């Protein structure tokens, strides 16, 4: 069917329709390119940009200046237009993506401001100079039988390429990383997704495509002005089209672009331009209120959105059983992680004070302490989410304190969250596939799928593989956290209160599971308040109080120490009063 449609579209210029049809279809493809390229960054990663017009405009002006002023042949300017836009995106991205706060609406505003700054510079410098640039004398390349068909074919090819790229990224490892960023960027980074690099790559691709669309459009309109090019209408229309079609699907923006272009063209041609404009506004409101996932997102069953990962799992589960049985427990060995003099303060509150501790390979270390004693902070510092103010952390001969969270994850450190933080729009299976690809195991997608099935089997979540995390109960969500961290093949697993909130029977099964994880050779740090489980699991216990280590030793000995009892229950004379 796709081939047939493609052939039909290719044949149009040779059927001698009136040029009007080709120009109309050119506009449809034009908006498909702009909306789809916008979505590659903004829809996939959730960084909604209002600055797509800037990169489109850079493309327009690159081609306009090179053809009109320097007599370059038109086609030769297109790669330059793409490169200019991409370089601008990389420059902007490497500045903006470093600032954690600039997300959501702030990113949207910032990119809009960048558009206006760029417009002002172009307007006031010889690039434009004020009156605009005319491409009247530039030859249109004879791709089709007529100029309008040449534009049509050129834009058709660009649209096809853009959709191809959007689809490829959507399916790829990069795409999974981007969707994880959209759901919860901090967790994605801690689980091993190189968020900065992912965003920068797609920003460059997205902008390059907008640059090409701009370059072609410059010659199509043949007279470019800064006011038209950088008007706020371009980015807003692109956002509208994508949201209308559905931003989580690769084809959503193309659907939205087609609908909007047809409506506005029909109303202009039918002498109701104002009604058409108002209709577009009304559609935008209705879609966001009634179909927040867009037309495509609503029409397709939510599980069909990214089901390419539903494989035949009969074989893989059998393999999983075999490999689960085959692993052998290693003996407790040398230190795997050494924390030395680590401190961390939050606006005056000293959460960690010169903490020293070491964890030996193959060990289960119980990390205890009253609420607010610094246990979670320590986990966050080890996994790189917080930077240590002082001290060093050696893991497997790597110094962790200067590494980004995703680099630490890549070295083989995995963690779970006390309150499970699954990626809400990825299926249970995709949640696990993500860490198998981006964590320490660094598998390709096919192997990652097998690995994910293996750990879903291990945590008894196989039946829920295609569900979304919202459909799981707390027990299952906690086990999903476990499966997700295990799929990265961690050398060190940091379990943050994985048992809290579970019923006694669920705790028993979790304790059994943690024993089995250690039997695979994974070293475990267990932050826990459920003492029964700690005493059953831990080989050694470290107790933190007010950010300091107050005890370190065998479980029974540590729990008998007066300092520990005081930390938990208060001093004796306090109790007597």
């Amino acid at each position: 069917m796709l081939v047939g449609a493609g052939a039909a579209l290719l044949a149009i210029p040779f059927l001698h329709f009136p040029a009007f049809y080709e120009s109309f279809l050119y506009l449809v493809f034009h908006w498909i390119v702009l909306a789809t390229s916008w979505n590659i960054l903004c829809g996939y990663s959730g960084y909604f940009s209002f600055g797509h017009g800037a990169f489109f405009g850079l493309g327009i002006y690159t081609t306009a200046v090179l053809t009109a002023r320097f007599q370059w042949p038109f086609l030769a300017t297109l790669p330059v237009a793409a490169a200019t836009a991409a370089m601008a995106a990389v420059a902007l991205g490497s500045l903006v993506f470093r600032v954690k706060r600039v997300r959501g609406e702030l990113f949207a505003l910032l990119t809009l401001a960048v558009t206006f700054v760029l417009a002002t510079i172009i307007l006031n410098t010889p690039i434009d100079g004020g009156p605009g640039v005319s491409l009247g004398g530039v030859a249109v390349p004879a791709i089709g039988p007529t100029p309008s068909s040449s534009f049509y074919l050129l834009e058709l090819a660009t649209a096809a390429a853009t959709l191809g790229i959007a689809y490829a990224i959507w399916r790829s490892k990069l795409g999974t990383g981007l969707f994880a960023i959209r759901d919860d960027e901090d967790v994605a980074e801690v689980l091993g997704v190189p968020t900065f690099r992912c965003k920068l790559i797609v920003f460059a691709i997205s902008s390059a495509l907008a640059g090409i669309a701009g370059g072609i459009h410059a010659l199509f309109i043949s007279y470019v002005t800064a006011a038209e090019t950088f008007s706020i209408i371009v980015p807003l229309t692109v956002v509208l089209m994508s949201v209308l079609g559905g931003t989580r699907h690769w084809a959503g923006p193309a659907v939205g672009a087609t609908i909007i272009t047809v409506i506005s063209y029909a109303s202009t041609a039918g002498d109701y331009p104002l009604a058409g404009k108002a209709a577009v506004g009304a559609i935008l409101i209705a879609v966001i209120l009634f179909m927040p996932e867009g037309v495509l997102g609503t029409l397709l069953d939510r599980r069909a959105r990214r089901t390419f990962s539903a494989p035949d799992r009969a074989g893989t589960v059998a393999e999983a059983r075999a490999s689960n049985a085959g692993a052998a427990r290693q003996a407790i060995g040398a230190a795997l992680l050494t924390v030395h003099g680590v401190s961390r303060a939050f606006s005056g509150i000293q959460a960690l004070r010169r903490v020293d501790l070491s964890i030996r390979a193959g060990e289960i270390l119980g990390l205890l302490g009253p609420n607010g004693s610094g246990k979670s902070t320590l986990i966050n510092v080890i996994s790189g989410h917080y930077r240590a103010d002082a001290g060093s952390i050696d893991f497997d001969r790597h110094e962790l304190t200067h590494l980004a969270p995703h680099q630490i994850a890549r070295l083989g450190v995995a963690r779970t969250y006390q309150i499970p933080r699954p990626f809400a729009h990825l299926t249970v299976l995709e949640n696990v596939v993500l860490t198998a690809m981006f964590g320490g195991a660094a598998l390709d997608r096919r192997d990652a799928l097998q690995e994910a099935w293996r750990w879903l089997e291990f945590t008894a979540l196989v039946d829920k593989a295609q569900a979304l995390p919202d459909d799981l109960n707390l027990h299952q969500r906690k086990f999903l956290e476990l499966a997700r961290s295990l799929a990265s093949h961690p050398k060190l697993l940091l379990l943050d209160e994985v048992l809290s909130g579970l019923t006694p029977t669920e705790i028993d099964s979790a304790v059994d599971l943690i024993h089995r994880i250690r039997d695979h050779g994974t070293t475990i740090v267990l932050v826990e308040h459920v003492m029964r489980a700690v005493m059953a699991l831990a080989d050694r216990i470290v107790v933190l109080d007010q950010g300091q280590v107050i005890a370190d030793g065998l479980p029974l000995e540590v729990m008998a120490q007066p300092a520990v009892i005081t930390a938990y229950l208060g001093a004796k004379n306090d109790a007597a009063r």
Partner: protein
Amino acid sequence: MTLPSLALLTQAVLSGIFVGALYGLLGLGLSLSWGLLRQINLSHFALAFLGAYLTYQLVMVGGMDPLLTLLVVAPCFFAAGAAIHWLLAGFAVTPLNSLLVTFGMTVIVESIIQWCWTADFRRMTSRYAEITYRIGKVYLPLPELLQLALAVTLCLAVWATLRYTDLGKALRAAAEDGEIAAAFGVNERVLAALLSGACAALAAVAGLCLALSYTLTPSQIYAWIGVVFAAVMIGGLGSALGPLVAGIVIGVAEALTMAITAPSWAPLVSFSLLIAVLLVRRGRA
């Protein structure tokens, strides 16, 4: 580049203050609904222009005094603002989606304005427009003085209400954590609808100022968005005085840029400031 005369510079600073006051007045409603209701209300600009056109109509056709038109326009807008909030809150719209929904409203309002008053330029004539005071070599037009007075008065009034009254405290508490505030007896939904209505009424006042001092055309709605957003971001979300101060700083900076270089360089100032503020400012926005 030669520096313009002192009188010209003074005049530039003054006109910067005047236009900056309008940035602040437009920003006030935007800042309140963004900071306290988590709604980024783009339709604020459309409402302001609708208000300006209604004022134009009432003055030019109805023969009303421009200031008295507020008695008609502001209550209607108050109801419209409450309705917008009811819609956005009823669907639990996220901040980003509120931006998109209100953009849809803006487009609709723009179409209505263009349908009623066409895309031609409209300039309201009134008895205020004729009056200009002169101090030395510097001119002070009455409409712009009114604009400054209205902006400063309203911003101060809102600031005082938020800071000193129980109503203001309840609003700030509800913005901080709606559920907890509700548990302590704050009727969050009514308060939010009131606030949203008040923001729309402020848009009516801004519309009056637009009609008094500016030539109106529907597409001008979009010309104000960028600068006013800059004033709000720089001044602080939910703040009443911040946008006014930031607006005046931006207005003066723009006016000086125009006086010293060319008018077309003016946007560079506000947007570079906005980018710098977004990148450098610490803490929660």
